[in-house]
């Protein structure tokens, strides 16, 4: 036979080399076959479970649902932070798929028939189709909400609801974000149906009417549904806003109700609803306690990523509640009084007021002006509202974060230091003129008046400056600073008790850590040169470098009332609190010396600088202060009053501070006194009830 293929003689099967090749190939294929078979067997027999779990996980997802937050009560059990039901209108995008498709095809047809369209952007048309369909549904929803049920022709003017333009049409960016990040969840068309313009909450009747109209009139069973969740509600609006704080949207949800041990949770795809986490105040520091445990839903999903079938679920668990030490009546009285202290243009002056239980240190009221309404921050913080509060300086809790020179209220410390260090005794008299020369400068008496013979009691009654200059210079800055530190004027307060096992270190967030009790070393440290006797004179009357907070000064008043050096304030109510204060020791004055201090503070109200706060039937011990500070480069006054009541059997201590305007019309007794008086009247009313 002719060798058509011109084969080499070496290629015949009888060739030993060919046989080797064939054998090699045979072995190669056998090995390959064994490898594949072994691999398949390994996957089928050994890895079967793992692969099945993986395949299972690919078609499942877990949706995490946030819990309702715990409530916050005042010391008498009144709810001061609650949750309200928020009704949201949501669209099920999976059910709307046929409508999207129909609209998409219609848009394509239109585009093709339009000669001006050169190139069709199919992605843009798909997005537009979704937007059109959702806007169509939104039109229907608003039609039902707006329509007057009496006569339809009136529908244009029927709704009293504030128009929230953002929720009248679908926000394209929000839709894009939803489709990218959480298309499995329903798309929110209206966030808060009862209060569609969350910036201006409508009246409750109108809110009820809106929800009722939707429930009774909107066709049910379709892709649009009404869903409820819980949102924070602050029934007293701005009351104690700085203490309570506010919440903010977060997908960092608290831990789940149950473990997912049988679900291999870590390998499942997770989707989280947006929940709320504390962003300020108690809401922030007690967030782990208030936030509860998240619930979950196990869904199968479609190939396009939508949720298909709910397999299992677990309800979220509401957070625990907290009882604050605040008393709403005293708190409201303090805030109302603060609002009435106005500048020449009629705007309330910034300030703070604190009232403590003398024995337990529990804070009965803590007000800071200007303030904000946490209800306005529930759905989201609008830039307009944020800027408004920012410009007023309303985010600052002046009671714990403001730093102020204590002014003449510091004279209590100067007097105690002088008597403890035998610089002067309670009945020693000093002659006080209209001023006192320190170095080459005359330090004036307030009001330019000469008070003549002044002892400790009279000094506190009339707030004599010259007495303090003289005594302060004798004491020296180190002893003055030592005494101020003994009373904790620069000590951190509101530390979280370890018993509460809360990760936050303080009961209220970010208390100021820039408190100053100055001494020569401090002045050196800040590079302000060597300490001089003028600095000591200033320090003795609470001026100069000394900086403290209203809460510290309220603690000082409470400590003096109990004849102790320290008061541990707390915002948490505990009816079994034992009244022991961390680091507290006796002040170290003898009976007469202590009586001189207390009597001076009492007379300060009866006949001295705090006369504006007299209350019939209540003896009050107080010390006023008017310190100077510079606001925008101009001299202004800080008005202070601190004290306790009843003077003979102290129960409450207080401190009030008002930041004066750019003149010197603000004075301790005159300006801050009425606020303290209002708080005491509030306390008296509560006391009468008990």
């Amino acid at each position, binding site marked *: 036979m002719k060798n058509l293929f011109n084969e080499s003689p070496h290629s015949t099967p009888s060739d030993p080399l060919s046989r080797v090749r064939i054998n090699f190939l045979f072995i190669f294929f056998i090995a390959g076959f064994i490898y594949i078979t072994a691999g398949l067997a390994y996957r089928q027999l050994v890895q079967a479970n793992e692969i099945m779990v993986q395949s299972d996980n690919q078609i499942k997802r877990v949706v995490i649902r946030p819990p309702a937050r715990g409530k916050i009560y005042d010391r008498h059990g009144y709810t001061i932070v609650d949750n309200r*039901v928020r009704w949201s209108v949501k669209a099920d995008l999976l059910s709307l798929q046929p409508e999207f498709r129909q609209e998409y095809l219609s848009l394509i047809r239109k585009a093709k028939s339009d000669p001006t369209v050169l190139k069709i952007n199919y992605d843009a048309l798909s997005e537009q189709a979704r937007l059109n369909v959702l806007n169509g549904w939104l039109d229907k929803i608003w039609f039902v909400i707006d329509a007057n049920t009496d006569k339809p022709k009136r529908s244009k003017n029927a709704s009293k609801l504030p128009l929230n333009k953002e929720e009248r049409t679908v926000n394209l960016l929000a839709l894009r974000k939803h489709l990218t990040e959480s298309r499995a969840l329903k798309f929110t068309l209206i966030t808060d149906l009862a209060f569609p313009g969350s910036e201006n909450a409508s009246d409750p009747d109108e809110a009820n009417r809106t929800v009722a109209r939707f429930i009774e009139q909107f066709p049910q069973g379709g892709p649009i549904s009404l869903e409820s969740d819980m949102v924070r509600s602050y029934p007293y609006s701005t009351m104690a806003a700085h203490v309570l704080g506010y919440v903010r949207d977060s997908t960092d949800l608290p831990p789940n109700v149950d473990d997912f041990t049988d679900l291999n949770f870590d390998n499942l795809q997770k989707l989280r609803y947006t929940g709320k986490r504390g962003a300020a105040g108690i809401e922030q520091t007690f967030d782990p306690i208030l936030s509860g445990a998240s619930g979950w839903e196990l869904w199968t999903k479609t190939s396009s990523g939508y949720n298909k079938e709910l397999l299992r679920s677990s309800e979220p668990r509401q957070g625990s509640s907290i009882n604050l030490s605040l008393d709403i009546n005293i708190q409201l009285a303090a805030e109302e009084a603060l609002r009435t202290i106005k500048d020449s243009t009629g705007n309330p002056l910034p300030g703070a007021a604190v009232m403590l239980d003398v024995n337990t240190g529990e804070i009965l009221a803590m007000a800071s002006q200007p303030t904000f309404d946490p209800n306005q921050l529930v759905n989201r913080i609008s830039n307009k509202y944020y800027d408004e509060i920012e410009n007023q300086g309303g985010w600052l809790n002046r009671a714990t974060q403001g730093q102020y020179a204590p002014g003449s209220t510091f004279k209590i410390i100067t007097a105690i230091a002088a008597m403890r260090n035998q610089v002067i005794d309670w009945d020693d008299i000093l002659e006080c003129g209209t001023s006192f020369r320190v170095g080459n400068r005359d330090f004036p008496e307030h009001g330019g008046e000469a008070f003549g013979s002044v002892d400790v009691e009279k000094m506190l009654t009339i707030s004599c400056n010259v007495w303090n200059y003289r005594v302060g210079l004798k004491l020296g800055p180190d002893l003055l600073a030592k005494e101020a530190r003994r009373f904790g004027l620069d000590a951190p307060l509101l530390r979280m008790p370890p018993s509460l096992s809360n990760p936050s270190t303080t009961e209220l967030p970010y208390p100021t850590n820039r408190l100053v009790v100055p001494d020569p070393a401090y002045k050196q440290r800040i590079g302000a040169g060597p300490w001089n006797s003028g600095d000591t004179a200033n320090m003795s009357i609470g001026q100069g470098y000394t900086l403290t907070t209203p809460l510290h000064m309220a603690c000082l008043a409470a400590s003096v009332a109990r004849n102790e050096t320290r008061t541990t304030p707390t915002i948490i109510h505990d009816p079994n609190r034992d009244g022991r204060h961390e680091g507290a020791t006796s002040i170290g004055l003898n009976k007469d010396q202590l009586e001189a201090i207390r009597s001076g503070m009492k007379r300060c109200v009866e006949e001295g600088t705090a006369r504006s706060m007299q209350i019939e039937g209540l003896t009050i011990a107080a010390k006023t202060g008017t310190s100077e500070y510079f606001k925008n480069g101009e001299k202004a006054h800080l008005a202070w009053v601190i004290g306790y009541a009843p003077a003979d059997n102290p129960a409450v201590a207080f401190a009030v501070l008002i930041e004066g305007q750019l003149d010197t019309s603000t004075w301790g007794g005159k300006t801050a006194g009425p606020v303290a008086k209002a708080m005491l009247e509030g306390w008296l009313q509560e006391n009468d009830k008990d």
Partner: protein
Amino acid sequence: MDNNRQGAKASIVALIVFIGLWIALPSTIRRLNKEAFSEFQAPAIQLLSKSRDLARYWELRSRSTEDLVAAGRDLARINATLELKLHAMEDIRKENLRLREMLRYPNSTEYLTVVARVATRDTSTWWQRMLIRKGRNDGIRPGCPVVFGNRVVGRVTTVHLNISEVELVTSPAFRCTAFLEGDDPPRIVHVSGVASNPFTTGRAKVSTTGLGGVFPAGLILGTLEGGVTSTAQGNLKEAYMVPSKNLDTIEEVSVLVPKYPTAGEILMSPTDRIKLEEFK
């Protein structure tokens, strides 16, 4: 044998073709077909109901004259009482109107009442519906509330020429807003769903809010039975409600037809988009 097989095959093919055609038919034609079937069925339902009424009539005819005289006397007494109440109500209505005008308070929804006999009812199945012997010809529209006295029976879902379907208050799909007796301040309760915020416990009456524009205010839906349970979420509470009237024994109901169509009615009509534009 082969002929039989071929016949069977042909039947299956015909069935498949019929199903295919039915699926492929436009929804309008299918809806029309369904409507036609309902209209075709309606006379039979009416006939059945009327024959029941006739049987009842003959049953009453068989009563003794004494019984009828006594019943007539009782009825006359009731009529007299009702006459007095009617006068009192008229005075209250006028006073109400005067006060509303004085306060410039918006008029509440006005209703026309259509009394209808119950044709059939089915409260045992999941759809829980009732058929009444009045329909489009009598002015009934979908969505109208159906009441017995001052008690809610349900809501009209579908209207044919001479009969209408009523979804009963016990149906899981029934939706309405209500207030609870003793709840101060009154808060909306979502009947057949979850209730908002804490409310009173015990046998509190549940009545319509009148805020939704469908049901007039103050109609009784039922009473709460058993305890109120909190959901794990916290503020939401749930409770069972027993309807105010035994729906199995109702013979006659009143349909409250709003004088003007509600927004919901307009949306439910097939040409809702056009009408929506009209009202914008």
